């Protein structure tokens, strides 16, 4: 069935709620409104307000309550309306969700999927457009995933809801309705912790995820370069092996992400390639990312975040090094 990312996620939540009555949704406007992007649309009618809970407006309360639900044997799916509001729940995620299993030596765990839209490019306000994945990946304890297409979105969500771990599920706002894909109606999983080689190639490796995946793919197609494109899908834990295997084959590595350049996911990947595959490279590692500025108002967002032109120029530079 043809689905965009919103309908694929809605379908995944519906299936998970059907198969496991411990799955409950909570957040601001997730009930009658179906969430501001409609990802939870219609679920309150089907499952009732005990399982689709419109909460008071308080992000730490939402995440903290979800942690308590998880400790009590439920599998909550809290939605934070925009990533820029999730910092209010950051303490709960880092101080509790990330370490409860460790602190109790697996006596208690926090099976939970925190959903939030991320990324810009939709002319939204600046607190609605951030890419905070590195904040949740740092230090361990939280699984961080970010799909780039409807098929992966559904499969990763199903997998996340089968894991007994806290998962931060980042949904690129720009991709919610950008395109449709054939998505199976039944339940299936996409592995968490495994990157996806979406295009095989010999001349260079481009490691990317989320909003940047369709942009990178288009540029590579248009330029007719023989690039291998890796869609990370999971940011933490990182699939280091897939990255290293590819880089050792192509000898050139480029990382493209929408989040800011410095101290980011690209820095981590570049460091790992340097440590473990440096002598198999024939050019420096290149990063293409957003500027080291807080997300701007929409007038300059095309300048702020990487676009096809910037990615194309980086490919040209890498191939001529």
């Amino acid at each position: 069935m043809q689905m965009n990312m919103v309908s694929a996620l809605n379908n995944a939540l519906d299936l998970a709620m059907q198969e496991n009555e411990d799955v409950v949704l909570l957040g601001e406007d997730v009930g009658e409104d179906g969430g501001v992007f409609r990802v939870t649309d219609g679920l309150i009618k089907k499952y009732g307000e005990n399982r689709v809970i419109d909460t008071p407006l308080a992000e730490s309360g939402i995440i903290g309550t979800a942690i308590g639900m998880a400790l009590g044997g439920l599998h909550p799916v809290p939605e934070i309306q925009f990533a820029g509001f999730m910092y209010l729940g950051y303490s709960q995620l880092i101080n509790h969700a990330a370490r409860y299993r460790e602190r109790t030596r697996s006596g208690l765990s926090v099976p939970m999927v925190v959903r939030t839209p991320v990324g810009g490019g939709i002319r939204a306000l600046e607190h609605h457009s951030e890419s905070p994945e590195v904040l949740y990946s740092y230090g361990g304890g939280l699984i961080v995933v970010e799909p780039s297409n409807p098929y992966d979105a559904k499969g990763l969500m199903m997998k996340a809801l089968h894991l007994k771990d806290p998962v931060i599920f980042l949904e690129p706002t720009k991709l919610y309705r950008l395109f449709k894909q054939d998505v199976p109606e039944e339940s299936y999983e996409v592995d968490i912790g495994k990157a996806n080689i979406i295009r095989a190639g010999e001349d260079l490796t481009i490691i990317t995820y989320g909003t940047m995946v369709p942009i990178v793919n288009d540029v590579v197609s248009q330029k007719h370069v023989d690039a291998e494109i890796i869609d990370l899908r999971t940011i933490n834990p990182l699939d280091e092996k897939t990255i290293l295997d590819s880089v050792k084959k192509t000898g050139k590595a480029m990382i493209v992400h929408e989040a800011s350049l410095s101290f980011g996911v690209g820095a981590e990947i570049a460091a790992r390639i340097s440590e473990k595959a440096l002598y198999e490279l024939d050019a420096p590692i290149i990063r293409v990312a957003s500027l080291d500025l807080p997300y701007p108002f929409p007038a300059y967002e095309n300048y702020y975040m990487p676009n096809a032109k910037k990615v194309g120029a980086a490919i040209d530079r890498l191939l001529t090094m």
Partner: protein
Amino acid sequence: MLQKVFDGEIEYLQVLDENGKVDAALFPNDLDDNKIIEMYKYMCLARAFDAKMLSLQRQGRVITYAPLIGEEATQIGAALAMRKDDYLVPNFRQHGVFIARGFPIENFFIAGRGYEDGLKAPPGTNSLAVAVPVGSQMPHSVGLAYALKYKKKDAAVVAFVGDGGTSEGDFYEATNFSGELKVPLVMIIENNQWAISVPRSKQSIAKTLAQKAFAAGIRGLQVDGNDVIAVYKAVSEGIKSLATDGPILIECITYRMSIHTTADDPTKYRDQKDVDAWKPKDPILRVKTYLSAKGLWNDELEKQMTEEQAKKINDSVAEAEAFKGDPKSMFDNLYSFVPDILKDEENEAVDANFWQ
């Protein structure tokens, strides 16, 4: 038009006064002499445990410890009011509640030696882990109570927060969520008058902390937190009325007779006269006076109890000292699986034998 749209008042409950006299009209009818003796013994056990932890800490055998001395009535009264299936959500000072609910004492000594293994609750002890970030446990208590209600269990959650914790956003969010979600939750403010060096008067100009319940639309009550019978009554009646009347916030007025933690020196900010003023209100003393007057307690029983408790504590210390940790457990318990990159870090540590 100008009309009154809200009316609220906070009652203060005391059953057993500091002279050991009970208010017969308020005496809980489900409380018999044996239960009061049990309360007395647990309060003494909690204090003896405290003394042991402080002693071990000074010897460098356990890490930083937050003693509960002076606050035994709040903790034991609540613990004995809880039913077996009820859940405890602690902050970091509720050793008394844990112990009275059957949590193994040796676990505290294991945790005190620096091993997380001590925080693992044996099945059936129904408690969350100690929460250090102040107030952050309160939203958990709401979610946990929601889960119990959702699963149609005949059980409630009893959560603890300090007077300082009631200034945290998580406290306000949790009280508000609890009312809105109508969860079976009793929230106890263990108001010991001090948040490290900041006195209760500097936390809030609110006359009571219990009145914070009104902002959330839930019930609030103030109790003499040094009166184990009043705390027992408030918490047990609170639990029984959750289904009909919704969550309740109970402020227990007590006093931190000792240090905040072993890293604290109260002489820097607190007048000893303040502490001395609370000594006659001691929670254990008044129960002893009450039981002795009724002929239910004497020196012989006291001596016997003290010896038994010392043995129990020393045995627990010995058991905890026999515990052997395994650093591999750090890697095995982070997720439900061990990711490859973490496995690499573990292998490196094992191969290089970094931890020997």
